[in-house]
């Protein structure tokens, strides 16, 4: 599909309306002091993003957890399983079938998500970027796995 084909789907009046939005809704060009500040901050973040630095604290944390787990398991006469707090299994989720088009994911947390835990759960939700997973080239799949390994891949609930 060429860009001309897409634009031809708009009437002349619609194209004019879109052009007004394009001109009226654009940022000031990045120049002068703003550009300098942008690049200084970017360079700083780039240097701080080096994985060799970032992985060190994670490695320490993993090693600490492993050592703790080993210590627990190695304790004589104890059953590590019984140390665990009892966990009430969550209630079965109620699945309500609906013929209506599913609503778009909420842009903000609901009232019930306003507690600390609810907010955190909301913030960690993955978005709906992978609705077309089967459609996308392999590069996108690799990207998702590499950058965003939080594992939740919600289906696109948009209409």
């Amino acid at each position, binding site marked *: *599909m*060429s*860009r001309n084909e*897409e634009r031809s789907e*708009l009437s002349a*009046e*619609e194209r*004019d*309306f*879109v052009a007004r*939005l*394009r001109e*009226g*809704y*654009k*940022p*000031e*060009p*990045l120049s002068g002091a*703003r550009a300098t500040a*942008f*690049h200084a*901050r*970017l*360079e700083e*973040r*780039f240097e701080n*993003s*080096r*994985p*060799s630095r970032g992985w060190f604290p994670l490695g320490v944390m993993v090693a600490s957890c492993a050592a703790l787990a080993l210590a627990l398991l190695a304790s004589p006469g104890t059953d590590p399983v019984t140390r665990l707090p009892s966990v009430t299994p969550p209630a079965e989720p109620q699945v309500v079938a609906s013929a209506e088009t599913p609503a*778009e*994911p909420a*842009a*903000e*947390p609901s009232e019930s998500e*306003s507690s*600390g835990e609810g*907010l955190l759960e*909301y*913030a960690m*939700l993955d*978005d*709906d*970027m992978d*609705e*077309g*997973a089967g*459609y*996308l*080239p*392999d*590069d*996108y799949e*690799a*990207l998702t796995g*590499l*950058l965003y390994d939080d594992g939740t891949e919600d289906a*696109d609930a*948009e209409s």
Partner: protein
Amino acid sequence: MTATAQTIHQGIQEYGVADSLAGAGALSDVERAQRFGAFVAEYRDRALRLAWRLLGGNDAAAEDVVQEALIRGFRALGSFRGDAALSTWFYRILVREVRRHQRWASVRARWNGIATGDEADPAPGGSPDVLLRERIAKAMEKLPRGQREVFVMVHLEAFTVVQAAEALGKSPGTVKSHLHRALVALRNELADLREGAPS
């Protein structure tokens, strides 16, 4: 793929992703910085414009999101195998960062008990240009996220439907549907901007 992007891509492939990520191999700090500079030069301006439009006209938020996307994109460049356009691949990262920013901004606002959303940077005075920009930003804000994203990408940033579909992880049919609905909604919301309407 543009010549610059191809050069960067080939360079990273040549040295391997592990070296480029850790900086421990053949890539010196200088080479790594130079390649990152070329990567930034390739995408900065359009990425800033796209992020700004998706974030309701917030300069600071757009700059923050673009910086994060540039760094993530450069770090992940070694995994790019060339079976998709590098630019579309990068903009997919950018859109994800925009969404991530919006989600955390919403959580922070809720936690602090204040209004949610990214507010446009306050502009000095109330010139017609600024007022128009604010009106359009508010109309965009009212659109569902999916509609807003495809409208900005296709109609304001001149992505093709297929490019937008790949960057957003949607089918082209969904993108076209969103485009139509967004246009109808904006024409209603900003009716006075239509041709022939009294200004």
